């Protein structure tokens, strides 16, 4: 037993004040921190888990870039615009696609082991919605491979880059001018609260998949950053756009990478028909994710799926050797979680909640409407994904806009003094947490409220939606918002008190869920991931615009509109 092991200080003895504070240490946060440190800023990076456990680690398939001489960034950008169902902002998409090849070279340079083909050159795989095979990958552990190498680089910069691992952010701070001036965080190991002063704050805390059940997202993905920013007045955008991934495991919602179809796997209905021939005669199984998920759900709803509400993914179409080399994780997942050897038999899958295109509204430098507050990665909405994100564009989004945020935040920090936060702010948060811990027993369990939220969202706000269901879901979420502050807390301790964290996270998820539902009710058309059975057509005349969601005290949030930026691609009918 290791009880006699060495003791070490858990965190830095230095007072936490930094030019740039990054919240979240997945790909976006680590890339932002590295860019800011490389630009000369002092950086703090806070994460509620150890950085390499961040959910980016689960990203499987790869990262898109037009790096081959026969490819072009314009082609990548057009595919992204079309994938977004013309809701993506084309100026931001152009930036992302133009800068993508250089980012791949950067990653390669710091030691990411991208797949090499038999001649020793970088190899690519095909991905959905793309007109070229432009996805660079590391087997099916691309996220893990990049995350670990970025973490090595964070360590290399440890002299000006302080890591706060297993610190949970509870609140963002605004100073008297309305600028974001830092955050208050709780050290999970001993329950201590601490103010982190910062000239600029970059939110990079990921999405909100846990507001849905099932989801492909890990248990830590609870919408923290989206809700924190929203609560201090940051605008949210495109929140109604929730991606259902076409291939999640029937048993438990785990992700089967799109790389499987990229390598040649087929989707089949219960009759063994390759049904995508009907829905996307050109791209077939590699149409955009919203298109494929809708096709699957249509097959299932119309009785052509299996009795357990699934269709089949047949990976035996891929040569076995190639599967074992390029899809090794899903071979394991099939074996361990479904009891199936995917190289020999088809596997049952269904669409499952995977990603939110929406988030904190930013410009192409990651700036939100609150001065000093930046956002990058899934927490943000630039918007490069619009109504539907292409596979392998999310890693790219995290890295490009993480870097751009880090650089911009570092430059901004050079121009200003270090803010100092009055002690009263800390006292307020301390009182909030003490109130949570001392709640009387008797309320509903946090897990039960979370379960009701997740199943409600998945029932009414999934692949197909309508006004009636959305209104019903909204009513339930409003009720849950009243129940949540009364939920029972059992752990009254301070060391790794997961109950307190769960109570706070539940509040975040409810705020995000409401924003999603308000956006989905507002958008009375079908575009990208939002398919309204009561408004089944895309309506560019009225709805080629973003829906922004703004906090309104404890009431139902306000809705605003903002224009979509169109540079060179006018909306066209979208077929695959």
């Amino acid at each position: 037993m290791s009880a006699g092991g060495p003791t070490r200080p858990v965190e830095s003895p230095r007072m936490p004040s930094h030019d740039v504070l990054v919240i979240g240490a997945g790909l976006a946060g680590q890339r932002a921190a590295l860019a800011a440190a490389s630009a000369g800023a002092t950086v703090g990076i806070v994460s509620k888990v150890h950085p390499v456990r961040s959910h980016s680690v689960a990203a499987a398939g790869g990262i898109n870039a037009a790096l081959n001489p026969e490819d072009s960034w314009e082609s990548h950008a057009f595919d992204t615009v079309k994938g977004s169902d013309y809701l993506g902002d084309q100026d931001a998409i152009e930036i992302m696609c133009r800068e993508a090849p250089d980012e791949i070279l950067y990653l390669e340079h710091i030691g990411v082991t991208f797949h090499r083909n038999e001649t020793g050159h970088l190899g690519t795989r095909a991905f959905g919605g793309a007109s070229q095979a432009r996805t660079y990958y590391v087997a099916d552990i691309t996220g893990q491979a990049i995350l670990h190498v970025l973490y090595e680089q964070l360590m290399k910069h440890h002299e000006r880059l302080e890591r706060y691992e297993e610190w949970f952010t509870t609140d963002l701070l605004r100073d008297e001018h309305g600028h974001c001036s830092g955050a208050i965080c709780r050290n999970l190991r001993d329950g201590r609260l601490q103010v982190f002063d910062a000239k600029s704050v970059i939110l990079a805390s990921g999405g909100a998949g846990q507001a849905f059940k099932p989801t492909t997202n890990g248990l830590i993905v609870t919408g923290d950053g989206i809700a924190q920013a929203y609560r201090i007045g940051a605008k949210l955008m495109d929140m109604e756009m929730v991606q259902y991934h076409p291939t999640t495991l029937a048993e438990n919602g785990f992700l089967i990478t799109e790389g499987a179809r990229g390598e040649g796997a087929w989707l089949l209905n219960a009759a063994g028909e390759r049904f995508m021939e009907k829905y996307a005669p050109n791209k077939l199984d590699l149409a955009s994710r919203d298109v494929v998920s809708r096709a699957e759900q249509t097959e299932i709803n119309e009785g052509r799926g299996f009795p357990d509400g699934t269709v089949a993914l047949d990976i035996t179409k891929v040569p076995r050797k190639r599967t074992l080399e390029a899809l090794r994780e899903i071979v394991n997942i099939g074996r361990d979680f479904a009891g199936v050897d995917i190289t020999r038999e088809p596997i049952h899958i269904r669409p499952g909640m995977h990603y939110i295109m929406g988030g904190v509204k930013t410009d192409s430098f990651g700036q939100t409407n609150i001065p000093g507050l930046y956002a990058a990665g899934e927490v943000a909405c630039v918007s490069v994904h619009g109504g539907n994100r292409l596979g392998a564009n999310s890693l790219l989004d995290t890295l490009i806009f993480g870097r751009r945020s880090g650089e911009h935040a570092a430059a901004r920090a050079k121009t200003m003094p270090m803010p100092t936060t009055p002690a009263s702010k800390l006292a307020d948060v301390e009182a909030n947490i003490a109130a949570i811990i001392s709640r009387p027993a008797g309320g509903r369990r946090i897990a039960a409220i979370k379960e009701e939220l997740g199943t409600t969202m998945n029932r009414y706000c999934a692949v197909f939606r309508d006004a009636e269901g959305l209104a019903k879901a909204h009513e339930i979420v409003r009720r849950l918002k009243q129940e949540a502050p009364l939920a029972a807390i059992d752990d009254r301790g301070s060391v790794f008190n997961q109950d307190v964290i769960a109570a706070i996270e539940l509040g975040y998820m409810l705020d995000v869920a409401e924003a999603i539902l308000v956006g989905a009710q507002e958008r009375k058309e079908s575009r990208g991931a939002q398919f309204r059975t009561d408004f089944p057509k895309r309506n560019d005349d009225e709805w080629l615009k973003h829906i922004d969601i703004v906090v309104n005290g404890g009431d139902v949030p306000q809705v605003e509109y903002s224009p979509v930026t169109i540079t060179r691609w006018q909306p066209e009918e979208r077929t695959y």
Partner: protein
Amino acid sequence: MNFTLRVWRQEEHDTPGRFETYEVADVEPDESFLEMIDALNDRLIIDGSSPIAFDHDCREGICGACSMTIDGRPHGPGDGTTTCQVYMRQFDDGATVTVEPFGAFAFPVIKDLMVDRSALDRIQQAGGYTGVNAGPKPEPNANPVSPEDAEEAIDAAICIGCGACVAACPNGAAMLFTGAKVTHLAHLPQGQPGRFARVQDMVDQMDSEGFGGCTNFGECEAACPKDISIRVIGRLNRDYLMGVLYHPRNPRGGMKPQ
């Protein structure tokens, strides 16, 4: 299925720990081990006791968070799996199952089944990165990497840093972890600058953290959820020897960040 669990409970690092015994009944064979603990925790909470603290996140075997020693095996029964990939059907009905934290001198317990694995980070921080700025980024296809080298590098880079190798080793050695990190970069052109200083700095840090040395038990390889081969320790030893003999570091010590 029914089980008797013996679980290590420890309030915090400085307090003494003990095994507590819990009976769990009506467990589905297809329940995962962590789901079984979740259910037990729900019961403990309802009974007014404190739930068992354990690390977990993705529950699909990729994040490296979960870390329990089950019946003496880090990550429990089954080859090439993490704790979250263990199912109750892998145990005999009625069995007594012992659950402990990853035990190692360099992994102090934080609470119950959670341990502090930051010593592994400090090994990495001592030099486990591409450290030399070699001017502008080269066009990657200017330096072809053979598929064999790329494959070897990926087989090492797949390390999720869970620390099972340390917990499995009778010597509490971190050589499979360190070897994997060294091997990943040693197979790539961009890992060549600083290669021999890197291995010496990492080994020095590994020793100073109180990890033991490898004496070829092979337990690490058997416990590794990513099936990393013990060959990486051979690579570590070869590079370390090459470093000490032919590439000694300058007297000012380690590689400095650029």
